[in-house]
């Protein structure tokens, strides 16, 4: 047992080290851009899963990202904040909004909750389009400054003039966030979420304040969406209300579902496969949505546990096959 744990820990550390050296292998800006987007999607799908843990399927991730993105951008451009402060503040503001709307929303159950979160997302987009004085309306904001450079005694010198520096920023952000998400899931709070998901009324009856915990899940998940949203405009240097449209939220949901929402690695795997494979199929650009839909359908029809459940599933099929062979031999 202990040996097994050591091996998995070691291979995990090896993998992270590998991730840190990846920009040395892929130096082209296009490759780095793809890797950065992949990490963004991993983070988003994982944070969506946190909300899902409490039995609520939020479709407000796009809206929360928009809130985070605009908050961070406006703090930097209008109030002169450092972007290192504004990015977490963007996340915090998204979490605050999520908590405020979460209290009334959490009264609704199942699909009603999802639909109201869609409406909320649409309202965020409409507000951003309407409030032209602040957000620049439908055209959005351009020339958003890069994050301030980091200089650490000559050891570390990140100026954010190249994609490599952004890669390291996003990698750090993702690893840190995944660590926090993992810790939350395996803490008492995470177990409470699971309990609420299994039986709302039973959890309530043993003295768990379900509303509070549901709002907490919604707020925490939205925080990470807000931080990722805050990162994005500084990276792309532009933002508009349609940057994170409803379709974007749907894609995040697909990453989570295809990967398998039951396990922590599910959304990570799903986001990796579904972001990198379409890029590999780039010559067939027009067929990418079909590919997405086909993967999604295959997973729903044949793999109820998602891609994560694939090895177990394959083992069952193989066992059955061998058993049949034996029977007829």
């Amino acid at each position, binding site marked *: 047992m202990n040996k097994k744990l050591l091996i998995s820990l070691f291979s995990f550390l090896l993998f992270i080290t590998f991730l840190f050296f990846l920009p040395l292998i892929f130096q082209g800006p296009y490759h780095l851009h793809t890797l950065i987007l992949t990490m963004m999607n991993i983070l988003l799908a994982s944070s969506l899963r946190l909300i899902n843990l409490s039995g609520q399927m939020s479709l407000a991730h796009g809206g929360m990202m928009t809130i985070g993105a605009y908050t961070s951008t406006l703090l930097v451009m209008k109030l002169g904040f450092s972007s290192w402060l504004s990015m977490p503040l963007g996340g915090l503001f998204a979490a605050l909004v999520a908590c405020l709307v979460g209290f009334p929303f959490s009264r609704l159950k199942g699909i009603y909750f999802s639909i109201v979160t869609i409406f*909320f997302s*649409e309202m965020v987009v409409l507000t951003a389009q309407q409030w032209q004085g602040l957000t620049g309306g439908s055209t959005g904001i351009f020339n958003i400054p890069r994050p301030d450079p980091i200089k650490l005694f000559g050891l570390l010198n990140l100026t954010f003039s190249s994609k490599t520096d952004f890669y390291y920023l996003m990698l750090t952000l993702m690893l840190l966030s995944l660590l926090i998400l993992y810790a939350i899931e395996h803490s008492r709070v995470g177990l409470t979420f699971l309990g609420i998901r299994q039986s709302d009324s039973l959890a309530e009856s043993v003295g768990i304040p379900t509303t509070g915990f549901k709002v907490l899940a919604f707020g925490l998940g939205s925080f990470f969406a807000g931080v990722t949203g805050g990162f994005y405009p500084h990276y792309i240097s532009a933002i508009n209300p349609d940057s994170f449209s409803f379709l974007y939220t*749907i894609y995040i*949901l697909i990453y989570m579902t295809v990967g398998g929402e039951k396990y922590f690695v599910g959304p990570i795997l799903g986001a990796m496969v579904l972001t990198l494979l379409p890029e590999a199929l780039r010559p067939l650009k027009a067929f990418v949505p079909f590919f997405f839909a086909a993967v999604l359908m295959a997973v729903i029809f044949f793999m109820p546990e998602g891609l994560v459940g694939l090895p177990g599933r394959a083992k069952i099929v193989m066992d059955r096959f061998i058993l049949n062979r034996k029977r007829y031999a």
Partner: protein
Amino acid sequence: MSLNALAQTFLNGLTLSGIYILVALGLTLVMSIMGIVQVSHGEIYMIGAYCVYYLVAILEVNFVLALIISTLFVGGLGIVLERSCFRPFRGQPDRAFTISIALILILQNIVLSIAGGNPRTYTNPITGVLKILGIAISWKRLIIVLVGLGLLVVLFLFIKFTKTGQAMLAISQEREGAALQGMDIDRISSIAMFLGCGLAALAGALIGSLFSIHPTMGSFALMKGIAVIILGGLGSVPGAVMGGLILGLVDGILPALTTTHIAGLVGFATIIMILLFRPQGLLGHE
């Protein structure tokens, strides 16, 4: 605002109401009988509009005939979809929801690759204006209100007085109980899907006679359709009518007074507020 302008705005609202009601009726039928949220309903609506476009603008079929053909064709498509995609997941809302998201991508991109992304228009042979008390009302818009109203009455009579309609009602109330009484749930689901998709196709075809059509027009219809049935109460036909009327009038009249963005905001905010006080919708029951 003059009386004439006021009447025009009101009629615009009623036209939108007609479209919303048609879309919402289909959605609510499918939702209550199969227990799933069919989010690709907007794409069905879009396909209905494109069918009429091809029939009228390319094959030069009579407009009314094109409407009928498109409704039947898309209804048939609905049956195929029910058979292949939704039947295995009846009563499993989460998985059916994901399947219909996949269908959005597939249907939208099929149309995109066939018809291209440019907006299309087709001419409606029904022209002219009706003058009542000095107020000019275009027949084009009035016909949508009339078709909506007519189909509503037909659907109501169908549910009330035919055996199939009563079976639909029974299944929407208690699926297992209905099955125990010997009702064929598979057949009724197919019929519901046929009716729902047909109604959506008709709505799409009618709106195509007013505005240009494009492959992503479905998301608007879906949003409004969901808003209407949530507002009125899931599975309730009178609720869908009431919700459609309210939302259509709000969307028709408010943009004349403020901007479209604010009108949209008010619409969504109203629904969220209503849901918070009446989670089952205006006329729904838990």
